[in-house]
């Protein structure tokens, strides 16, 4: 039987507000345990939460970017369960009236667009972190993370493959980074993705039993885990077995999913409206204010770069991967440098240097003006493309402007015909055998002569000029 996969994603994103969702504590991730805490996030007796307005702003921005409807009236609820990573033994979340409802996100599938439905996005507080490495049979709780602002983004079961899931996560991350609502760092846990996966015979519309894959540390991990899980479920069904509803983990080393928790009797969270908070009323003016502050989103920017700067679809995709990268490109392109050349250098030599040095483009010594000036030196024939590679490496290390490097190192391209003619004649005279071969029709020998001339000029000879002079002198 032919099966198709039905996948829905739940993504928790830590929103990068300065303070926690319900108190004034810092959201700084790298603080010693239990230092970013106060009576409120510790759930001391008598404390009350106050919703961080910036959290609502950023959540509205995310909702709008995901084409959601922003609820005019929503509320927070208490989700009750006992666990030591909670300071109150209930989590303040949104249950039946989330802030953002019914949107979509467009991904690229086999060269065409596909919309993944967004069911909802709701605000909630993060939990603390339980630490079991203290020894002596003791466990500890670090409450720094308790009360960090989270946005949970839930899709419709619209995803049909591991690749689509990967594309969805990539696009989502890019959007959220463009909005500056989250750094979406999966390793640090500021983005956590869970996939609900089931399979069903092609042509049917009901859902199969789903498994939930959790705690995967990277997008490619999610992709591989889904791939594995789809195959596992199909194999189980083909062998006459049944898929069990359960939570499964991902073993990246062995490349398999494994049972983490069998489905318990459905947990009763006893949700009810949070009486310590007032309803969240977002009027049209508030929503409009956030809408007007939204930056150009990745999809729009890709299209514009292709149109305005003549980039290929692939180049536009790579160049807009991050906002900093795209901003860098646009600064170079607007300075008058050739946009295609700029893109080539950014994706090629410059990217290689950055990767080697583990740097981001905005942190390196090569500013847009460095690159732009270098491209202009190539364009006006001052240096060759080959020499430019050395200039780039020098700029990367020293931060000097390209003109200074060319001057100091004497890298100026030799475009003086008279000087080059002398060199060409000498090389021809020194190599009578090859000269005779060329005149006998062996065209390949030309390359030999170019090489010799470049060697003699330490690569500074203008290649076009060298070619012209050679052919003239050889009488070709």
């Amino acid at each position: 039987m032919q099966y198709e996969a039905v996948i829905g994603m739940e993504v928790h994103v830590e929103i990068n507000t300065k303070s926690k969702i319900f108190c004034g504590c810092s959201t700084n991730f790298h603080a010693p345990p239990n230092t970013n805490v106060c009576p409120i996030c510790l759930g001391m007796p008598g404390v009350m939460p106050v919703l961080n307005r910036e959290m609502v702003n950023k959540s509205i921005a995310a909702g709008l970017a995901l084409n959601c409807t922003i609820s005019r009236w929503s509320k927070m609820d208490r989700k009750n369960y006992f666990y030591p990573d909670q300071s109150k033994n209930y989590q303040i979340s949104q249950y039946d009236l989330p802030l953002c409802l019914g949107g979509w996100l467009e991904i690229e599938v086999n060269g065409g667009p596909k919309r993944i439905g967004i069911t909802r996005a709701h605000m909630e507080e993060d939990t603390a972190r339980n630490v079991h490495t203290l020894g002596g049979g003791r466990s500890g709780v670090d409450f720094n993370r308790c009360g960090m602002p989270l946005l949970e983004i839930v899709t419709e079961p619209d995803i049909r493959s591991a690749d689509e899931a990967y594309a969805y996560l990539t696009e989502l991350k890019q959007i959220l980074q463009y909005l500056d609502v989250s750094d979406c760092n999966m390793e640090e846990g500021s983005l956590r993705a869970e996939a609900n996966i089931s399979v069903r015979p092609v042509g049917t519309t009901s859902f199969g039993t789903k498994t939930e894959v959790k705690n995967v540390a990277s997008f490619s991990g999610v992709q591989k885990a889904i791939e594995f899980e789809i195959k596992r479920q199909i194999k189980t069904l083909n062998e006459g077995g049944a898929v069990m509803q359960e939570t499964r983990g991902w073993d990246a080393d062995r490349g398999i999913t494994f049972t983490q928790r069998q489905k318990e009797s459905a947990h009763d969270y006893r949700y009810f409206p949070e009486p310590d908070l007032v309803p969240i009323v977002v009027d049209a003016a508030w929503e409009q204010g956030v809408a007007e502050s939204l930056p150009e989103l990745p999809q729009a920017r890709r299209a514009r770069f292709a149109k305005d700067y003549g980039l290929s679809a692939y180049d536009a995709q790579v160049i807009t991967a991050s906002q900093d990268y795209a901003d860098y490109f646009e600064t170079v392109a607007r300075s008058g440098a050739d946009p295609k050349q700029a893109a080539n250098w950014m994706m090629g030599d410059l990217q290689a240097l950055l990767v080697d040095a583990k740097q981001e483009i905005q942190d390196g010594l090569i500013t847009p003006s460095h690159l732009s000036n270098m491209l202009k030196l190539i364009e006006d024939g001052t240096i060759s493309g080959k020499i430019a590679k050395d200039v780039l490496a020098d700029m990367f290390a020293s931060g000097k402007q390209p003109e200074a490097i060319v001057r100091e190192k004497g890298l100026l391209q030799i475009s003086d015909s008279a000087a080059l003619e002398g060199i060409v004649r000498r090389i021809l005279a020194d190599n009578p055998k090859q000269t005779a071969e060329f005149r006998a029709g062996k065209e390949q020998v030309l390359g030999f002569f170019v090489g010799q001339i470049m060697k003699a000029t330490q690569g500074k000879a203008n290649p076009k000029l060298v070619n012209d002079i050679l052919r003239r002198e050889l009488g070709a």
Partner: protein
Amino acid sequence: MTAWHQKTAHEIRDAVAKREVSATEITRSYLERIETVDDKVQAYTQVWRSEALAQAEAVDRKAASGQALGPLAGVPVSLKELLCTREGETTCASKILKGFKSPYDAHVVQNLKAADAVLLGKVNMDEFAMGSSTENSSIQRTCNPWNLNCVPGGSSGGSAASVASDCAALSLGSDTGGSIRQPAALCGCVGLKPTYGRVSRFGLVAFASSLDQIGPFSKDVRDAALALNVISGRDPLDATSANLPVPDYTAALTGDMKGLTVGMPIEYFTEDLNAEMRGLIQNAVEVMKAQGAKVVDISLPHSKYSVAVYYIIATAEASANLARFDGVRYGFRHPGAQTLQEMYHLTKTEGFGTEVKRRIMLGTYVLSSGYYDAYYLKAQKVRTLIKQDFDRAFEQCDVIITPTSPTAAFEFGAKTTNPLEMYLSDVYTISTNLAAIPGISVPCGLTAAGLPAGLQILGRVFEEAAILRAAHAYEQHHGLAMGKPALA
């Protein structure tokens, strides 16, 4: 001359301001009084002798240096055990918080300090404010100053008893279903529950968050107005506190009731109300009429559902509010637990008293999947109907009067075996919290047994001024010889 501990807060404040007496002298008088009579009453769970004297001395220094004094300068105040204070412990009269020291002061405690009040210590209550007699305290048994064999009411029984026994000039308590007004009535003092949102709840250990409200106990109505001035107002740390200006409530005390219409709910004045209580209320009605009030009958048709609705909503919220007392971060942790589940189980089993456990279980039940719609959701709908009853009633009148409690103080143990009967002690007060409106209890005479009775006056939301005006006019003109409890 009457002793300082017998005087009202405004008398003390004026005398301190005029430097006729020092705050230290006042404080000593109260501490002495506590030493003399609190052995019998047992209102105080903690007395902060040295801290109180230090605060009084600071007020005196301020006065001596000619600085302006706060509106409660030198006024000795007691605090219910569930208000968070840096001083002493904050136990909610529960074993689970025995020894717990709060790292911060409740908003109202900060306000009291800023107003130059002197904090004498903390007073007893029903555990986590659950009860109507203060018998559910894990700490001690507080007696009614008028009859030591009787309860002081609850849950703020210690607050009422401390004021009635002249062991505090003012006290702050909390009222979730009558916990200020009922003990005030049973102890013969004034108790005010402000509108929900009038006073910040930050630092009040929550019982039922949508119903809880902090309010004052006082010896007269003017003091209640004075205290309300100090504790009211928007607090950025309490999202439910109202962003409305705070008027000077003492300015509302005109001494008459001209132009006020008083509503009497027909549902409350039936054969069910005992004749003695009815007689006392009827006398009050005559006094009010004489002061220019017009009296009309009104109807609160859904009031009969109040107790049921209350015990669903309040317990639901309490089941979540009390979940944090788990032994993980603070308070009591059972030493015998080997696993996490055991730690939760043993800590809560031994840390909470019977009534608290009963309400947590009830609240957990009404929120459970399959029961939520039938209980919690339905209760919220009826709560809206009860609110609408009051909206309609207040179209016909400015204030509503009822008895505060169906009976005067009862003897210890009289209702402890029957929780439902205990719950009915709050039958007249509970709907006020459900409707979020303000209410005040003012003494309206003594029963034949020599126990105080209370008249409850209710008003529109944020119209504390109207009920204070009515209560004050009544108090000034009722002509009753209430006297003082014969303690000493």
